[in-house]
């Protein structure tokens, strides 16, 4: 194994982990406000398809990015209406949203399957210009990758250092108490879901506009559920989400390296490791779960009738 291949695992992990990271950050915000979104897969698909479509039509990947983010936020508003306004069950509403996303993205994306786009431009890391092209291309990142860690820090700052974030976490812990202290749980949850959808939309845009430069039906292939697992893995914390996303995508990159080195280990079994790890982590800190998970996650806020 050469230096290139080891750096390559890192580079691959960054490239394919970015969409996971944005999606996970969004889901952290949503879950911190007390709403679990199992429809993430659908939100990603709708965003990825509409972002790709806008990129094809306008020829501008940044407009596509914008569209994907906005559509992601709007799609999440459906979930918001169901679970906040109509007090529907979160898990069922999320799954319904997933099926909605399967269908809507197929409809939006159909005319653009196989279209060729110019993806988000890549900007090399400063200081790598003297290296051979193979190495510079390893760390030639698009804008979304460059902004991923700042975004995680921003999310952390919003959640833990602003009044709004304090309110959001209070709603996630106990909506009734938050209401009693003068906050509007419904409004905060809508805002959290919109922000969550924006970030998921950025993650989806990275997948379709920057990384694969392609749209196909069901191209997310379960990444929405991976993000939900990642939120648990990172214990509802935006900074740990960075590590989580790198671990999950790095595992895939490492698996591919082993495969092409001729090592005889089932890639399927290697792919299960992150999930098994997450379950083990859960077991390890099972007793004091309440310290991390928002206490009213999944509960309906009934208001004060």
């Amino acid at each position, binding site marked *: 194994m050469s230096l290139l291949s080891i750096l390559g695992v890192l580079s691959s992990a960054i490239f394919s982990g970015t969409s996971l990271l944005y999606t996970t950050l969004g889901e952290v915000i949503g879950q911190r406000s007390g709403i679990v979104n199992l429809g993430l897969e659908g939100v990603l698909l709708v965003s990825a398809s509409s972002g790709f479509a806008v990129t094809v039509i306008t020829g501008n990947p940044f407009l596509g990015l914008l569209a994907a983010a906005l559509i992601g936020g709007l799609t999440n508003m459906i979930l918001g209406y*169901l679970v906040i306004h*109509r007090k529907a069950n*979160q898990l069922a509403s999320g799954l319904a949203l997933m099926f*909605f996303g399967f269908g809507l993205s*197929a409809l939006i994306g159909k005319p653009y399957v196989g279209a060729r786009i110019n993806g988000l431009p890549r900007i090399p890391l400063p200081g790598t210009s003297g290296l051979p092209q193979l190495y510079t291309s390893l760390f030639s990142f698009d804008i979304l990758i460059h902004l991923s860690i700042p975004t995680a820090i921003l999310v952390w700052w919003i959640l833990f250092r602003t009044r709004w974030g304090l309110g959001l976490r209070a709603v996630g812990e106990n909506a009734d108490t938050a209401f009693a202290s003068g906050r509007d749980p419904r409004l905060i949850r809508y805002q959290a879901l919109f922000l969550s959808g924006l970030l998921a939309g950025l993650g989806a845009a990275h997948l379709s506009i920057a990384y694969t430069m392609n749209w196909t039906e069901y191209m997310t292939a379960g990444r929405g559920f991976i993000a*939900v697992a990642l939120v648990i893995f990172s214990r509802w914390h935006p900074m740990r989400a960075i590590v989580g996303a790198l671990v999950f995508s790095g595992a895939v990159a490492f698996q591919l390296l082993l495969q092409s080195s001729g090592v005889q280990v*089932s890639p399927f*079994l290697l792919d299960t490791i992150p999930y098994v790890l997450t379950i083990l982590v859960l077991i390890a800190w099972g007793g004091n779960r309440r310290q991390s998970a928002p206490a009213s996650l999944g509960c309906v806020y009934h208001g004060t009738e």
Partner: protein
Amino acid sequence: MSQTAKTFPRVSLSNPLVNNLIRYLLMILLALLLFGIILLVTGKDPIQSYRDIFSATLGSTYGFSEVLLAMIPMLLTALAVALPARVGLINVGGEGQVYIGAAFATWGALAFQNKPAWILLPLMTLLGMIGGALWAFVPGYLKSIGLVNETIATLLMNSIAPKIVGFLIFGFWHSPMDTVKTDNFVSAARLPTFFDTRVHLGFVFALVLLALFWFIMKYTRWGLEMRAIGGNAQAARRNGIPLKGYLVTVMCIGGAIAGLAGMAQVSGFYGVLLLNFSMGLGFMGFLICWLAGGDPIGIFLMSFVVAVITTGGNLLQLTQGLPYAVINILLALALFVVLASPRFFEGKKA
């Protein structure tokens, strides 16, 4: 029926059955209207589309049989959610349990393929149920000792199960000619079908289990105790009901039913074990169960409606040039409309 515990939002069916039917009908009409608008916007003919959907499902014997066929896994996976829900457990793991049940049944089908059907099929059924039960045991046990929330554990295990199926197919059950599946099952390993259609014995399994579920919940001590646990677990424990035992057992039985759905898919529907064959069956079951309020009759009706939509969508791509996946929009709209009607669903929302 009205005294049933409120652990699960449910439609009361004894008195306002007709009422509810009308309400559901109105909701489905609303969904059809919304989808019709989407079709119009994309330049398709909604009326012709609906004609196609209904002619492809209820307009012919074949279409109707396909609807029943599509209902089989839905009924079973919905039941796999409904039973644990009665003791307050949320089983989102149907998807994974379906895969493991299918894998166990496939092992039976491939390892004992020279046995006659009357040995092979019961064996595969049993294996499928054991597989699903084992996959549900882990989250059930972790929940019962208070370590990990079962919703989270079942979700995570959903992601693991299809990879294990992949490992088994490519590691052991695969020849280079087989692409992404096992060898075809021998005919003795196929569930018998009825009247020259594709509807197989799994339909009978599902109906019997639904009836059994209804009977046990309504008329037996187990049903009473489970309702007690679902109502207030700690109070039930103080009253001498073995809480841990119930939680684990009920979760395992739920898993076993989902495993049976997996067995029915590989043995009845496919006749092979195919990589990633489920594509959301377990999640569909979860939705159906929630929309039906965990009620056996509601599950039957909901599965029927969902099956009509998904089966009918097949013709749309031929006549309207719509991608097949687009039918999921109609499905989701119907689900949204029902979900947005909390008047029917009272009680704890988890």
